[in-house]
C-alpha cells in the first residue's frame, strides 16, 4: 500500500479560507520493529539532563584523592566516593583534571565553577552568568517536540529554590522542588496518557490556545514600542509564552505511543528538610517521576539540582552543615584527606547513584531510559576546602542512544571544563562546533568517548 507520509509530513488544509498545516505525531508506523529507531533507521532522539551537586569531591593538595581513578580508559576502578556508581559504572564516564580558566577573572566562590561549565565563560558577578547556560541550546535543539521543552528540578530543600539554568544569564529557571509538585506538573490534570485508546483533544486547551494567539499583534506592537532592556525582558517573557503555546499545541495532537510509559500514582507530600537523608530521598522520588516523565515523552531535557553550590545539607542531629565541614575539618595527616568531608561526599554521591539507577530501571526498547539519555553531572568546586576551581569532578552518564562510549575515565592536566560541555552538546546532537569564551573557548570535544 502506498503510504505517502513520513515523520516529517504535515497535514495541510484550509479553514475559513486560511491555509493551515498540522504536524504529525510520531506514529508506530514510523518506527522500526523494536521501537529503538525510526523505520528509516534514524535513532530515536536522546534525552539530555544536567545533574548538579555542591561542594565537589575530595582531592587534596597532599595527594589524598578519593574520587580520581588511577586507571584511564575503560575499566577504571571504583574510588571510595564513587561507590554508589558501581551498579551503573559501565554507563558512566569520569572526567578528571579539568579546570576553569578565568582569564584573570577572580574565582567567585561556589559560583565560577558551574557558571563556567554551563555558560563557557567565567562570570564577572556572583549572581549571574555572562551568557546562557548551554542546556537552553540543547532544549532548542531537541526539546521542541514534547509537552515541556525543559523541566527544572531542585531536590535540595534550600531556603530558596535553586536553578542554574538561564537563557539570559540574569534570570534563572524556577524549579519544581517536591515530588508532589513535579507529579502535578508532569502527570496532573493536563497530562494526556500517550497509551490511552480514548484520546481526544481537550476543548479547554483549544480555547486557551486561541486566547494566547489572539494577542500576537499586540505583542508585536508592544515589542516595537519599548527600549532595549524591556525588549530583553519581554522577549524572555514571550519565549515562555511561546513555549506555553507549543505545549498547548502538543496537547492538541494525539501523543505518540510510549511503550515504556506507565503513569505513576501521585506521591505523598513529604516534610521539607535539608538533611542528607531527606535530600537523598527527595532526589530518589523526583528521579523516579522524572524517569517516567521522560519515558512518557513529556520532556527530553531537564536540569536537576541535588544541592546548591553553597550546599545547605547536613547530617540530622549535627550542628554543622556539610559546607562548614568542608572548610573547617583539617586534613588527617595519616589519611591525607578530610575524613568527615569525604564521608559526606560519599553520601551526597549516593543520591547521584540513586538518580541514575532510577533512570536505568525504566526499560525502553532494548535498553533503558538511561541508555537513551545523556546526563552531565558536575559540581561547583574541586577541593571544596579552598573553593578550588581546578579538577572539578564531571561525569557523563547514559549511553545517549549509543553515541556515548560510556564507562571510561578521561584525565587531563588543566584543560578547560568546556571540553566536557562541548562533548555533551555534540553527543545529543546540538549543531555546535565550539563552545566557550577566551581561554575556555574550545572546538575540541573528547572524541575518545564519542561513538
Amino acid at each position, binding site marked *: 500500500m502506498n503510504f505517502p507520509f513520513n515523520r516529517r509530513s504535515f497535514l495541510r488544509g484550509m479553514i475559513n479560507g486560511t491555509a493551515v498545516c498540522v504536524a504529525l505525531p510520531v506514529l508506530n508506523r514510523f518506527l522500526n520493529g523494536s521501537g529503538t529507531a525510526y523505520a528509516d533507521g534514524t535513532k530515536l532522539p536522546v534525552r539530555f539532563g544536567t545533574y548538579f551537586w555542591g561542594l565537589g569531591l575530595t582531592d587534596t*593538595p*597532599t595527594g589524598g584523592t578519593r574520587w580520581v581513578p588511577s586507571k584511564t580508559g575503560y575499566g577504571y576502578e571504583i574510588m571510595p566516593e564513587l561507590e554508589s556508581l558501581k551498579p551503573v559504572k559501565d554507563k558512566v564516564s569520569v572526567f578528571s583534571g579539568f*579546570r576553569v*580558566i*578565568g*582569564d*584573570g*577573572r*577572580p*574565582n567567585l566562590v561556589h559560583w*565560577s565553577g558551574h557558571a563556567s561549565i554551563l555558560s563557557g565563560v567565567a562570570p564577572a558577578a*556572583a*549572581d549571574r552568568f555572562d551568557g546562557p547556560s548551554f542546556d537552553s541550546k540543547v532544549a532548542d535543539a531537541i526539546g521542541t517536540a514534547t509537552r515541556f521543552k525543559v523541566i527544572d528540578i531542585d531536590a535540595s530543600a534550600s*531556603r530558596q529554590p535553586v536553578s542554574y539554568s538561564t537563557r539570559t544569564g540574569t534570570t534563572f529557571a524556577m524549579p519544581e522542588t517536591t515530588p508532589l509538585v513535579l507529579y502535578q506538573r508532569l502527570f496532573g490534570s493536563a497530562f494526556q496518557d500517550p497509551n490511552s485508546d480514548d484520546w481526544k483533544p481537550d476543548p479547554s486547551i483549544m480555547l486557551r490556545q486561541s486566547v494566547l494567539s489572539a494577542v500576537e499583534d499586540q505583542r508585536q506592537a508592544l515589542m516595537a514600542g519599548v527600549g532595549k532592556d524591556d525588549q530583553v525582558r519581554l522577549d524572555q517573557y514571550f519565549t515562555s509564552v511561546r513555549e506555553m503555546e507549543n505545549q498547548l499545541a502538543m496537547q492538541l495532537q494525539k501523543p505518540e505511543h510510549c511503550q515504556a510509559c506507565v503513569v505513576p500514582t501521585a506521591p505523598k507530600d513529604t*516534610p*521539607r*528538610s*535539608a*538533611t542528607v537523608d531527606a535530600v537523598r530521598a527527595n532526589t530518589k522520588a523526583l528521579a523516579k517521576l522524572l524517569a517516567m516523565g521522560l519515558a512518557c515523552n513529556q520532556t527530553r531535557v531537564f536540569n536537576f539540582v541535588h544541592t546548591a553550590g*553553597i550546599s*545547605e545539607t*547536613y547530617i540530622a542531629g*549535627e*550542628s*554543622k*552543615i556539610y*559546607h*562548614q565541614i568542608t*572548610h*573547617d575539618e*583539617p*586534613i*588527617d*595527616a*595519616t589519611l591525607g584527606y578530610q575524613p568527615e568531608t569525604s564521608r559526606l561526599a560519599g553520601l551526597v554521591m549516593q543520591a547521584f547513584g540513586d538518580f541514575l539507577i532510577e533512570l536505568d530501571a525504566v526499560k525502553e526498547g532494548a535498553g533503558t531510559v538511561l541508555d537513551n539519555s545523556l546526563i552531565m553531572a558536575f559540581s561547583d568546586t574541586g577541593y571544596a*576546602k*579552598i*573553593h*578550588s*576551581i*581546578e579538577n572539578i569532578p564531571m561525569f557523563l552518564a547514559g549511553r545517549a542512544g549509543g553515541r556515548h562510549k560510556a564507562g571510561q575515565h578521561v584525565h587531563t*592536566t*588543566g*584543560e578547560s571544563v568546556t571540553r566536557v560541555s562541548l562533548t555533551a552538546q555534540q553527543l545529543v546532537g546540538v549543531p555546535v562546533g565550539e563552545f566557550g569564551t577566551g581561554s575556555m573557548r574550545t572546538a575540541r570535544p573528547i572524541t575518545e568517548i564519542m561513538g
Partner: protein
Amino acid sequence: MTKEAPIRRHLIATAVAAIALAFPGSAAPQQLSPSAKWTKTYVVEWNEPAMYYGAKTGVTDPGTDCPNGTNPSPDWIQVLVDAGYTLEEAKWLRNPANPTRSPVHGQNQMAFRGKDRANVYVNPTSTPDPGLTPVSGTIAEGLNLDDDENTGFTSPTGEKGIDNNFYKALGCWKTYRGPHRLSSGALTFNDAMRDGAWTTVIVVAGEGADPMNDDHVKVGFYMSNDKMVKDGLGNIARDYTFRIAPNAKYEGILPARTSNGRIVSTVPADIMLRDPSYTWDLELLRARLNLEMKSDGSLTGYVGGYRPWEPVYRGWVNARGTVIEVLTWVQLPAVYYALRRYADYSPTGPGGEKTHISYALRVDALPAFVMAPDGTKEVATVESYKAIAPKEPPRPALPFQIVDGIVPDPTGKYQAGPHAVILPPRASSDARQ
C-alpha cells in the same frame, strides 16, 4: 604582550650569558638601564603570614610551637550556655533546622552573647576573654624589627631577636597553623590571588655593578591589574608581563642592600601592601625585608613590620563573624584579646598605647617582566607612582550585606538581637509549617 615575553626574556638571557662569558667570575646584571645599574622584577605567586609550624606531620598535630596542637573547636552549646542561654535554647540555636538559622550565613543570634546580650563582635570586651592558647615554642620565622637580639624568638636557622608577636598570639589558631602553604588561611587567600583577585609585583633595582652584592638597592612593591597565568599543572607561569597599576594605597618602597644574593633592609620604612586576608590592608610601620634571590631566578623571604592589630580583628568580624567562628574553631573575642595582649609597638613612643603588633609576611615570587604603568617600557627604577594613582576604587560588592558581623535577614520572620525571643524546640515543627 604575554606572548612576546618569553622571547624577549630569552634575548635578554642570551645577552646576559654573553656578558658572563666575556667577564668570567662576575655576576652579570639581569637588565641594564640608564637609571639603575641593574633591575630584577618579580610577581608574587604566594604570600602568607610567617607562622612557623613545629609539628612533624598534619596541620593540627601537637608540635614544639603548640604542644597541645591547634586550639580545638569550641563547644558552641557550652559557649551559649555560658553566655546565659538555656541549654534548650542553645541546642535549638545550633540546630540547622532552626528557622532562625540561615545555614549559609550562620546563626545570627550567636553574635549576641555578651553582657546583657551585647553583640560580641562589635563589643568584644562585653564578654570575658574566652582564651586562645598562644604559641609557647621559641622558634619563629620573621625579622628582627627592633634590632634587639635579646627580645623575641630565634629563627629556624638560629638568628636571634625575631619579632613576630602576631605569630605568638595567633599561631595555634587553625586558620594560620600548618606547614608552609598548607594552612587553611594560606590556601584560601592564595588560591583567590592566583585565580585573579589581585596581583603584586616586586621591583628590585641597584646602583652597583654586582646585583648579588650591592650596598645601594631599592625594593618596590606595586599592584598590577594584569592577572597571573597558570601553566598546565596549575602552577603560576614564569616570565609573563605585568604593568604596574599605580595605587594610592598599596605601594611600598624599602631601601636595602644585597649580600651574597640576599636582600636586607638598610633603613625601616612605613609601607602598605595588599594583605592575603579579609583585612586587605597590610600597613607595616618600620617595615623591613629579608629576601633571597635564588639561583633558579625566584625570590623568597620575608617582609615585616608592625601592623595595627585591631583591623585584623575587624577583618574577621566583617567576613561574617558567625560563620568565621564556626569554620575556624575560634571565638572571635578571644582573637581580640590575644592581639591586644601581645601587641608590642606604639607609634607614639614606648609609653604609648600598643596599637600595633610585630608581624612578618612570607613571600615567594617568580621572575616576571614588569612594565611601567603606560606599558611602553620595562621599569628600570624603583619609584613611587602614588602621585599618578587614580582614586581608590570601591571594593567589589558581596552578594550579601554584612552589618556588625552578621548578615541581617530583613525579610525573615525571626530577627536576631539582644531582645530576640528564642523559640523553644517544640515550636520548630509549627514554625516550619
